[in-house]
């Protein structure tokens, strides 16, 4: 079955979505990520959506779900690389992704996750 790879990097998980996802693929990613957070005891998830030129309400909901599920599992989620045209469209669609952390790129997203982890440990 088609799957989006999840990479483990220390206490974090990294996902780069490179394909135009159909709905089942989005649901599989949601399941795989929550299972992996639990298995690896991950403290953060970084989702790179810079290659996505469309985020509709289904994919938007998947992103919000992942973020909420990760939080319940004691992990932070940050979504990075959203294209400006996607951001404009999402807000107009009525899905501003409140409660989901975002960063401009992977580097800033990793910095955010590291900062959060240090705060918790301090």
């Amino acid at each position, binding site marked *: 079955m088609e799957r989006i790879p999840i990479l483990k990097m220390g206490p974090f998980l990294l996902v780069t979505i490179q394909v135009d996802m159909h709905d089942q693929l989005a649901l599989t990613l949601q399941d795989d990520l929550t299972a992996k957070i639990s298995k690896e005891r991950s403290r953060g998830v970084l989702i790179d959506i810079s290659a996505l030129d*469309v985020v*509709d*309400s289904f994919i938007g909901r998947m992103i919000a779900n992942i973020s909420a599920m990760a939080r319940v599992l004691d992990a932070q989620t940050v979504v990075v690389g959203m294209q400006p045209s996607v951001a404009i469209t999402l807000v*107009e*669609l*009525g899905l501003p992704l409140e409660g989901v952390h975002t960063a401009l790129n992977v580097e800033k997203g990793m910095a955010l996750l590291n900062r959060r982890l240090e705060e918790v440990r301090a």
Partner: protein
Amino acid sequence: MIPRGATQRPAAGSVKLPVRTPEDIVRTRQFLREQAKAIGFSLVDQTKIVTAASELARNTMIYGGGGEVEIQTLAEGARRGLRLTFIDQGPGIADVELALKDGFTTGGGLGLGLGGAKRLCNEFSIDSRPGSGTRVTIARWK
């Protein structure tokens, strides 16, 4: 490029695509993106119409039990646009006004599809009655 399962109609600039599976929704998005690019839509306009189409295609698949979308290229003087008509023979919508409200859903979704698609387009109309299917038409001009 015309995707698999499409039927070319005699009228120039009009194509019908099936909307029955999640893969059909992806194909509709990709075909529409090419069309919008080809007639010179800005990146934001491309994204808006493709996103609206994705919402409506999912409605056709889930609530309409599958159907098809007709994609037309519009020309009015120097203006260019795209018109999409989603057609299904499903159970229809009992209360269209209620269905357009954000947050209303009879499925498991967010209830943003119809209202969201309407906000992303310049023209929007629904023709639906219980038992006689649904036809949703949207258009966006550049």
